[in-house]
């Protein structure tokens, strides 16, 4: 007898149909914020060794959404990183600006409005940090900012914790997507609380969920996808690799593999051995 688990609730029955309605044959196609994408890999653009390596990494990743940021200028004005930014624009990927560095809803709202004008998109990765040590999102400021931004016409991608109730509050505030952390930003620890992530997937079956932050190796991305997450967003794991371009490809393959496995239906674990070769009794009675 098999005891139902959270993962068995989340997994599509028989692997024929994904929860979002996609067919197994087009496992990488999905819709988010009314936009059809063919890649479940969202890539950050910070900290690459050179603009050329960033450009090659975006290409190798197959990512159609890349994150970007805003920086307060020096008094004299003027730009640095313009060469990086032009390459990102040229990549053709859809831009997802973030509000990195914000500590309050008010700051995040202002930065979001600036991002909308500067990047020409109403998509915003909403980040409001509540703790300096862990860079943990502040769930209260996040909900306040999300509600205001949704009212103002933004498509809010909140970078949030894996706490179920605060995620539900973000949905109540009008978010249509959630981006819970796997582990603290840049830590590379992988999914430190798979139970919480499984619970989110099981309790919020129709909501696009993206694991954002903390992914270290492609195995972590595979795990996220096998849990039924719709996509993965990561930056440091690629940018800090010895060969970022090859690592981008490694993650692409991992994400595809994990999604295919999820849609195919992963077998239930058993406590004891179950013979895989069909035999009738013992081959010889000697």
């Amino acid at each position, binding site marked *: 007898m098999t005891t139902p688990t959270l993962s068995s609730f989340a997994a599509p029955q028989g692997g024929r149909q994904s929860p979002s309605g996609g067919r197994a044959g087009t496992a990488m196609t999905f819709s988010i914020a009314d936009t059809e994408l063919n890649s479940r890999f969202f890539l950050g653009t910070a900290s690459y060794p050179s603009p050329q390596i960033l450009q090659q990494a975006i290409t190798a990743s197959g990512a159609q959404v890349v994150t970007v*940021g805003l920086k*307060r*200028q020096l008094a004299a004005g003027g730009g640095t990183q313009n060469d990086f930014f032009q390459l990102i624009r040229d990549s053709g990927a859809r831009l997802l*600006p973030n509000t990195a560095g914000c500590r309050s809803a008010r700051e995040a709202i202002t930065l979001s409005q600036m991002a909308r004008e500067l990047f020409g998109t109403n998509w915003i990765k909403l980040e409001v940090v509540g703790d300096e040590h862990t860079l943990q999102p502040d769930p209260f400021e996040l909900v306040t900012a999300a509600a205001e931004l949704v009212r103002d016409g933004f498509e809010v991608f909140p970078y949030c914790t894996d706490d179920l109730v605060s995620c539900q509050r973000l949905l109540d505030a009008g978010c249509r997507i959630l981006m819970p952390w796997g582990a603290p930003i840049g830590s590379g620890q992988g999914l430190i609380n798979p139970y919480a992530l499984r619970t989110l997937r099981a309790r919020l079956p129709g909501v696009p969920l993206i694991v954002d932050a903390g992914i270290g190796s492609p195995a972590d991305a595979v795990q996220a996808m096998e849990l039924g997450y719709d996509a993965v967003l990561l930056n440091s794991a690629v940018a800090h690799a010895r060969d970022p371009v090859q690592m981008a490809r490694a993650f692409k393959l991992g994400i595809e593999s994990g999604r295919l496995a999820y849609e195919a239906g992963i077998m239930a674990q058993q406590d004891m051995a179950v013979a895989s070769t069909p035999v009738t009794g013992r081959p010889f009675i000697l």
Partner: protein
Amino acid sequence: MTTINITLNGEARQVPGGCTLAELLEASGQPAASFASAVNGEFVARDARAHTLLAEGDAVFTFQAITGG
């Protein structure tokens, strides 16, 4: 002519009374579309800069696009 004290990205500046945000920012020589602006923590859209009068003590900030995670 009266002058007023403001800050631009944290640096103290004196500008003539009646100076608009657009006039202040034009002095940087940057294309107007290459950065976003805020006064006292409130976003000021590009089109609104020309009719946003600066006042004593205003804190003006400008932001540019960068890479991000």
